[in-house]
């Protein structure tokens, strides 16, 4: 892993298109500004981890979960 030290107001470039600005360094917290092309999605890492967990839970769906419901998404 590349490790760099930056001060408040300083920036990082990732490739030619992604710019990360250190906006504020507080107590145990850093605020970052991210400028990235529209095509690039930026999200907190924990969201990614939660999606993985949710996919794994979803994979445990029992084969017979439907019949108890009324109006269970039928189109007509």
């Amino acid at each position, binding site marked *: 892993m590349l490790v760099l030290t930056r001060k408040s107001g300083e920036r990082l470039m990732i490739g030619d298109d992604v710019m990360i600005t250190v906006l504020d360094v507080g107590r145990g917290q850093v605020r970052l500004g991210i400028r990235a092309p529209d095509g690039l999605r930026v999200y907190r890492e924990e969201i*990614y981890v939660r999606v993985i*967990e949710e996919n794994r839970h979803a*994979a445990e*769906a029992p084969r017979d*979960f439907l019949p*108890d419901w009324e109006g269970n998404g039928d189109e007509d």
Partner: protein
Amino acid sequence: MRIENTKLGDIEVDDARIVTLPEGILGFSDARRYVVLDIRKGSNLKWLLSVDRPELALVVTDPCAWFPDYRMPLTDSDAEALAFLEEDELSVMAIVTVRGRRREDTTVNLRAPIAVNLRTLLGKQVVLSEDRWGIQVPLPVKTPSPSGATDRRAAGLR
């Protein structure tokens, strides 16, 4: 081809309907090929069945049928991954999590939908940047509108 799924049994699927997600879905990156099967005729809930992993079958639904204002913006890199051309149609599926027997225990992941290009049958699970849509959203009790009634780009898989 024939799929032997440990959950749903042996199923014969039409090869022409196999959807490929080159990156898999998150947490199951080695399972790349899927088919969409009716759970029950006419239901908006479907099985997304892995061709590659015999134990993997997820419930999916067209999110727009339940949430008419739902949108999944397609970015340039998504379009590239899906080989998406202007005239192509996109299907969006949201993964459903069943936690118990009750309907209230069933949630849908609107934050990370699966988009499929209906021409190339290439798909991708996308994690949306904006936090407007949650990962564990309860399914509304009201009967959803027919698939694809609200947005051509977000029509259900046919």
